[in-house]
């Protein structure tokens, strides 16, 4: 499923994003599996709440971390995320 740049993105209803105290990491949980996230991936996914599209996620992150030029990295990660079913659109 390709990433649609215009559609808002929401985190998958059949996965769970959660902070793991023992690992000091955000993780994605799904049937019989777990993915450990680095901080930037976790920050992106936390913004996937069904109200923002790619451009809005990028601009929120650039604002939050007072930086610019995140478009390529964020888009690349979201492509991976949608392929893995961690996020959905519509």
């Amino acid at each position, binding site marked *: *499923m390709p990433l649609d740049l215009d559609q808002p993105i929401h985190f998958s*209803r*059949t*996965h*769970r994003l*959660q902070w*793991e105290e*023992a*690992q000091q990491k955000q*993780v994605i*949980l*799904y*049937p*019989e*599996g*777990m993915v450990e996230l680095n901080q930037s991936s976790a920050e992106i996914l936390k913004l996937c709440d069904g109200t923002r599209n790619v451009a809005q996620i990028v601009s929120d992150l650039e604002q939050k971390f007072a930086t610019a030029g995140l478009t390529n990295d964020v888009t690349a990660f979201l492509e991976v995320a949608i*392929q893995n*079913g961690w996020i959905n659109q519509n």
Partner: protein
Amino acid sequence: MAGSIKTNTPPRWLLAELTYACPLQCPYCSNPIDYARYQAELSTEDWLRVLTQARKMGAVQLGFSGGEPLTRQDLPELVKHARDLGYYSNLITSGYGLTEEKIIQLKEAGLDHIQVSIQASSQELNDHIAGTASFEHKKAVAHLVKKHGYPMVLCVVIHRENIHQMAEILAMAEELGADYLEIANTQYYGWAHANRDLLLPTQEQFVKAEAIAQAFKKKVEGKMKIYYVVPDFYEDRPKACMNGWGTTFLTIAPDGVALPCHSARDLPGLDCPNVNDYSIEEIWNESKAFNFFRGKDWMKEPCRSCDEQDKDFGGCHCQAYLLTGDMYNADPVCSKSPHHGVIQDAIDAAAQSSLAANEKPLIFRNSKNSRLLS
């Protein structure tokens, strides 16, 4: 024994075998052959304590299994406690006895996913293998699981009696809308070991079925995830035993015995500890059983000098014990094992058995057979 306590990774996966009771009689059941000996079951309070202690150490994936976990009346209470603690909880069920009301009740309690097993793609074969008329109900349950928003995992155990149905099994998974399909080639422990001559497919059957499964995997990419459990008798390297002994997995048997893998109960001299006597932390870090095969000090040749020892940890100790009589041996699945010939012997014996005029019957998993065989 090996294993420095300081370097232990915490458990991540807790398999809670709530009961050995089961309405099904699958002849490849992974429960121990002598399960009927272990009548005692942990109380609700015991399970609540175990869940709390393991979660505190870092366990996050939780499987409610059995037997049939639905036979435990306190399941919703355990599920709720698990959710409150932050586990991702998986119900591993035959679907037998699962009603829409129960599916809703468990969802409200916080259950994350339901894995339903189906034994075959046809009613006749499913009901024969399960030893119970259950096929239509299982399909109905699969639909209900989807309807109530759970990720739906379908699990089909593959063996000689159903491997010819691979294409139909995959089509059934697609029709039922499975999000995940676990195609589990039978692993030959417990009941499956006892029935191996009747269950082990030929190489030709396996190769044909695998090609069908791989083509399907491509076709449904992005829609359905396939977990393919390899039939290790047709591999030349062993599976990585439990991702490393005492590194990731913790199984608690119905009577409270803690096991580094769910077959470890059959290994001699491990003195597996019971949660009635020790905390999970003591069990994980200090018990003899969990330190038994930690690290590499236990290894003999060919594992000791093998450049793949960090990849597969010498393979499966239960398999080494079952097939060579010595759990310290390399898993005989490995082509470097001096005992590798026993695998071909097993394949040959199974092939011969399938040609024999009067094939012996499958031994179904039930309490009567358990008592007879133990």
